[in-house]
């Protein structure tokens, strides 16, 4: 006895449904057969994509910018660029001590419990380390700004003013150290996760986020009118590193495991961002269009941050990427 003809007909219908999405015919309306043909379990995600919304890429952008502003402020302090130091500390305080915490708190599922972030210190959790780095950065940047401004306006006389100047120096030094970590830890934050497109690039991400932060800080300060050769040099450095990262990203492909970057619309955001803050910023700066180079770099730094979060959402929802990353 052969398999009944109806079974064979059903197979044909399943095949047709699979190919065309729908089968119309006598009493039949099937959208796919019962035998699963999608990867994994009916194509369901294996890991959970991130729940983070627009606040997080914006925080990555402003946090990086603020952190590296403090680094520039320290250099400006050491090399006696007083106006630049004040501008950089203002930038660090506004973007790092006000904007960044506000964005982070807005993204929490329960914003009123934000202080629980400082309930424990877990060196194995990048999220915990980040909360402490941001808190330490704010603790240095805000008093540093106050001391610096009091000193600059000569509010107090004699010894007290000298003391303020010394305190400002200490605070700026602290802000620079924590700032450099604030700009780079975000790469660890998304790099040490279960999302394939992120953890496969866990060494690239901190380099990209930190360098994009440095270039952004220099770019904003240039746009604020501080057109000094040192910032131009920093701009060259950042754009050169970003160009190298763009090449690295295009060479180090991981097939299906990180196809969200190379085959998906979200990946275009990453690459467009890298072109804007890499080669384009470099060329513009080379030909002396400094404000345009600064704007291009800032746009790239923002777009690529948005891109990396978008890539994480695509990659996390892709079961084949997870399987491929583990084979």
């Amino acid at each position: 006895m052969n398999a009944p003809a109806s079974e064979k007909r059903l197979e044909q219908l399943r095949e047709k449904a699979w190919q065309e999405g729908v089968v119309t015919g006598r009493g039949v309306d099937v959208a796919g057969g019962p035998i699963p043909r999608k990867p994994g379990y009916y194509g369901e995600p294996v890991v959970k994509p991130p729940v983070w919304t627009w606040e997080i890429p914006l925080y990555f952008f402003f946090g990086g910018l603020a952190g590296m502003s403090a680094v520039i402020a320290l250099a400006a302090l050491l090399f006696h660029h007083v106006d630049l130091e004040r501008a950089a500390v203002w930038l660090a305080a506004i973007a790092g001590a006000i904007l960044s915490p506000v964005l982070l708190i807005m993204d929490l599922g329960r914003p009123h419990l934000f202080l629980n972030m400082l309930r424990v210190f877990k060196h194995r959790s990048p999220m915990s380390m980040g909360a402490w780095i941001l808190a330490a950065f704010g603790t240095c940047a805000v008093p540093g700004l106050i001391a610096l401004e009091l000193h600059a306006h000569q509010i107090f006389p004699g010894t007290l003013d000298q003391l303020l100047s010394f305190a400002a120096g200490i605070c700026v030094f602290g802000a620079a150290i924590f700032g450099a970590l604030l700009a780079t830890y975000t790469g660890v934050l998304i790099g040490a996760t279960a999302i394939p497109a992120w953890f496969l690039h866990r060494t690239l991400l901190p380099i990209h986020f930190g360098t994009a932060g440095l270039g952004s800080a220099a770019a904003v300060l240039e746009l604020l009118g501080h057109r000094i050769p040192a910032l131009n040099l920093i701009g060259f450095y950042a754009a050169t590193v970003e160009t190298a990262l763009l090449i690295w990203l295009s060479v180090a492909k991981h097939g299906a495991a990180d196809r969200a970057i190379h085959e998906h619309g979200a990946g275009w955001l990453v690459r467009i961002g890298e072109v804007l803050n890499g080669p384009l910023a470099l060329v513009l700066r080379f030909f002396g269009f400094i404000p345009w180079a600064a704007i291009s770099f800032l746009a790239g730094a923002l777009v690529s941050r948005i891109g990396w979060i978008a890539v994480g959402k695509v990659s996390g929802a892709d079961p084949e990427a997870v399987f491929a990353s583990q084979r």
Partner: protein
Amino acid sequence: MIGEGTHSTNQRRHNYVQENVEVGFFTDPTVCIGCKACEVACKEWNEVPDDGFTWSGNSYDNTGHLGASTWRHVLFLEQDRQKGSQVVGSHSLGNDDRDDPFRWVFLSDVCKHCEEAGCLEACPTGSIVRTEVGSVLVQDDVCNGCGYCVVSCPFGVIDRRPEPLPNAGGAFKCTFCYDRQKSGLVPACAKVCPTESIVFGRLDDLRARATQRAQELRQHGYDDAQLYDPTDTSVRGIHAFFLILGEPEAYGLPPRPQVPTIYLKSAWTAAFATAIASIIATLVAFAFSS
């Protein structure tokens, strides 16, 4: 085990929490009948809200996946492969025609309560803790909903509960019925399981029993029966392990799950190197131009 009546570990009272005994779930799809009583019991006992009634079109599974409001999930697999030595399809009765092999597998999925738990390591508030019985528990009153555990779970179990559900904003997953266990009761899903496909008990007992069961099944023609308990990866084993027929991918289970903390070293190295390089580059830039 079925047949043990009130002596079954699924039915008798225990003092595992008081005695710090490591416990686990052993889930066996070969005796599961897909009744979803575990899903219902879990929702009822833990007061987990409903998260929408959708028709998935995927066999008899409209639950889809584990999540903030789904802590037990019965999978329905339809595979063009025979299940053991059983007779499949009416047309193959009475002769040896096996050209339409087909099997239907049900498996109740749950939080794995990893030995090295990604969510627990990632949690910045200390909301996620390890209990006396070795399970992983989210303390809802501490969780501030940062969402980092969601991307740190290698099994995609934990999730943040969206508005407008009750207690929205926090991360939720299976509690291993910690409240019931403290009172000597068996977790709700295991308690109601009519075929004892879900078995609750001491971890070491269950591991031995699962290994024996897998052997037994292979002897009876289930030649692709295997234990899913990734003890050889950085997860170092799970407290809720499964017997599966075929490859783990078909169940949406990662073949070699890794706890994300193994990526920390290389990522932090890159971060520190970049931090130092940026400071040096900045100082050099200023030194050169002044």
